[in-house]
């Protein structure tokens, strides 16, 4: 059991080294001389990670050893990139990182028996929906680029959709855990297509309607897609019925097609995606600059700190709009090239793999679905934002988890990590106990 934690500890060393090297590279670029500040930053980061690691050693000794180092790696990478854009932002981000870790620890402390979440699932669902709609509330809502994703409460502004995604996943995992049997058994074949039982079709339609409403209200295709994809992923894993997914996709496509045609802002986003050169100097500027920045990177990139964010000598001419949030990925491609980008995507893939591994090992339905849902929503978020800046799908205002600048994002994702580690700790402990004490070789919940 401590073997897992030892592995975690070992894995943290390269993370701290990377952070130190990254800062060193940025310093070297900016000051043409290497101060020991980069070492100081690396040391701070390592200290915070070590503290977290010791906490995990005590509280979750069995949990997956790779998830935390992988996410720390992304955070370290993000800090270097943001530092390179703006020193002040990086300091904020570092504070949010520490705050995220505090919330991470609190989640682990108070949600050890995470199935209590099931008891409050409707409260959680309501909270989630309220969070999503909050940006439309007068007085606190904030509109950014036509989409309603932010909330401003006094001095603090945050992106509630980051937290809502956790609430929705918890609710769906719990709801589907309870209803999956009926959804499977009650299914009818109509014209060769397996349809869910009518009685349960209702709640599914409600979820569909909710994401459509979401699209209309917050006008953000990416967020809507992220939620609906998480729902379909969970529905598929819970029922094993691919036809449900297909029906869901068709419904989503029809719905979003209608909304794209009728809601101007959403329509514009799709137009920019299809024809970025039509408004190259205005609405298409961001996506075009994002592509140009990537073209500039090539295979190996220009090196840390070398990309053009502002026009040299013209600090007000922005070459890469929202470089610290939306377009941080093009910045990565610009500075580290295709190889660096592949490394980043591979890191996300490893996290996804560890998340699903956790789901595979989990013994009860809720744990399985919770781990699956959290991992899926994380992976889809990565796809939505990277897909947006690489023109796979329309560009929307979703953050790149752990790398983009943004307090809400980093804090919410650390809570997501805490939940995954909670599920993992229990699953691996039970697996170890099962393997050693009562000799039951077959893990629970394996048959679908």
């Amino acid at each position: 059991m401590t073997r897992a934690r030892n592995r975690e500890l070992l894995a943290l060393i390269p993370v701290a080294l990377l952070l130190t090297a990254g800062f060193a590279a940025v310093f070297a670029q900016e000051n043409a001389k290497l101060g020991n500040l980069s070492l100081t930053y690396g040391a701070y980061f390592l200290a915070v990670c070590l503290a977290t690691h010791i906490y995990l050693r005590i509280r979750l000794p069995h949990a997956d050893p790779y998830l935390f180092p992988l996410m720390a790696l992304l955070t370290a990478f993000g800090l270097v990139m943001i530092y390179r854009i703006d020193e002040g932002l990086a300091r904020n981000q570092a504070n949010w990182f520490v705050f995220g870790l505090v919330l991470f620890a609190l989640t682990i402390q108070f949600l050890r028996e995470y199935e209590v979440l099931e008891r409050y699932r409707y409260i959680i669902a309501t909270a989630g929906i309220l969070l999503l709609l909050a940006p439309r509330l007068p007085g606190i809502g904030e509109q950014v680029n036509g989409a309603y994703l932010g909330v401003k409460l006094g001095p603090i502004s945050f992106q509630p959709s980051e937290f809502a995604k956790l609430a929705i996943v918890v609710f769906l995992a719990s709801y589907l855990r309870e209803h999956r049997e009926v959804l499977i058994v009650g299914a009818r074949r109509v014209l060769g297509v397996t349809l869910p039982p009518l009685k349960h079709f209702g709640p599914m339609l409600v979820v569909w309607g909710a994401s459509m409403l979401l699209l209309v209200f917050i006008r953000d295709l990416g967020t809507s897609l992220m939620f609906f994809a998480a729902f379909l992923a969970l529905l598929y894993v819970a029922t094993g019925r691919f036809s449900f997914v297909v029906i869901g996709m068709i419904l989503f496509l029809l719905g979003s097609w209608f909304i794209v045609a009728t809601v101007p802002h959403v329509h514009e986003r799709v137009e920019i995606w299809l024809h970025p050169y039509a408004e190259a100097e205005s609405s298409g500027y961001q996506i075009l600059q994002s592509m140009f920045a990537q073209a500039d990177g090539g295979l190996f990139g220009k090196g840390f700190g070398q990309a053009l964010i502002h026009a040299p000598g013209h600090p007000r001419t922005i070459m890469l709009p929202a470089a610290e949030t939306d377009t941080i990925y093009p910045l990565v491609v610009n500075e580290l090239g295709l190889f660096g980008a592949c490394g980043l995507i591979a890191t996300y893939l490893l996290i996804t793999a560890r998340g699903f591994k956790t789901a595979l090992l989990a013994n009860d339905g809720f744990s399985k679905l919770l781990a699956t849902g959290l991992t899926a929503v994380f992976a889809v978020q990565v796809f939505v934002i990277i897909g947006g800046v690489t023109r796979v799908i329309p560009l929307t205002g979703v953050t790149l988890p752990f790398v983009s600048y943004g307090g809400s994002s980093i804090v919410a994702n650390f809570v997501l990590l805490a939940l995954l580690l909670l599920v993992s700790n229990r699953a691996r402990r039970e697996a170890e106990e099962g393997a050693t004490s009562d000799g039951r070789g077959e893990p629970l919940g394996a048959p679908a």
Partner: protein
Amino acid sequence: MNRQIIKLFTFILVLFAVLVGFTAWWSVVDAKELKASKWNHRPLYEQQQIPRGRILADDGSVIAKSVPEGHGVNRTYVRHYPLGELFGHPIGYSFIEVAQSEFEKYHNEELTGEESEFGTILDQLSGTKQEGEQIVTSLDPKAQEVAMNALAAAGHGAVVAIEPSTGAVKVMASSPGYNPNSIPNANEFEKLNSQAEEANQPLVNRAAQGLYPPGSTFKVVTAAAGLESGVITPETTINAPGSIIDEGHELANDYNQNWGSISLDTALTNSVNTWFGQLGQKVGQDRLFTMMEKFGFGARPPIDLPEEEVLPSGVWDLETGKLLGRHDPVDLARVAIGQERLLVTPLQDAMVAAAVANRGKLMKPQIWSRVVNADGSVTKRMKPSVYSEPLSAKTAAELTTAMEGVVREGTGTNAAIPGVPVAGKTGTAETPSNKACGGGAEENQGWFIGFAPANHPKIAIAATVECTTQFGNDVAAPIFREVAQTILAGE
């Protein structure tokens, strides 16, 4: 549920693979097109951050250099031209906010150090900052200055001086010039481009873009076609009356002088129109155009200047803006004496002189001489190459003899250099109501082409002056002499 989880993971694997695929598309596969997009200002800004290589004259004096401005990420380099107006042509300018022109534009890749893709990748791996290479030209600042001053005194015009054996361009002067350092100043730039400057056109390199009627300098080409085709030998005589009727128009000698039966030497020395008009008719359009093409007419001269800033010479149909070919109807006798719609750039005329001087071999004219990298080692050297061989050595020698007569005792005596045999040909084309000259009726285009020393040519020069009331011998031959003397003195 585990089976579905694995399938879901596979699906996400595919999604991520799509992301990698699209990233590869933008960053590598489609990168070249994206960099070329007119909406993409990155390449320009990036070039501004590269210390562009210097451009040097053949004596090592600095024609263009980059001066750093600002610090850190904001450090940019701005082009500075220490010699000011002297090499405004043919070096041109390179300013991010405005544009690039001429030599600076043509050699952009070397000057920014971007010439080899492989080198760039190596630099990326090793973290070396991109740095431009410097180019040493064959331009001779002393001779260029002599040419610029002489042109400024004479009016508008151009001088091109080429080393016949290599094609190395020693002088390329165009007057009026401009100071490239003033280009970034928006007011100055606007002024240089303004309507008021329409006649002066200081930004146009007349040496490569100025199309002028060549007048009698073209008789060298006609004579070459006659000798090379065997239609005449140096001894062949043609009766040259005071005037002949050609295509219904009278073609006359100066002062209608009747020369009787004379051979090439006398005809060229005295620039007898009726003699060369008849020779042109005897040679025929096909053979004359073939000879023109061998000298480089009908194509952009193969010089290291941007394509759009070099014009081809030939018989121009000004209404369609097209060059006429060997099958188009032209008044051949008038073409043979450099009239009709024949228009020639000073560069092309210098190439004619250079080909005769180099025993009939025309070398590719080139301004650059070698590329030197940041460490000071030569990475590329201009290798003289033959563009064409319009004449046999024998024909070239015969033509040289005739051209020596022009300077010794004929129409071009002002080109004579004491103690040095000079071969050449004058030209005086009437350009009445030329807009550039203010539309006066008495305006001429004065020319002189030639080379020296005639027995061992070191330099071939074309000099031309616009809007003069004088003859080529009065305005252009002295410029030839001064420039040639300066270059020969420096040898």
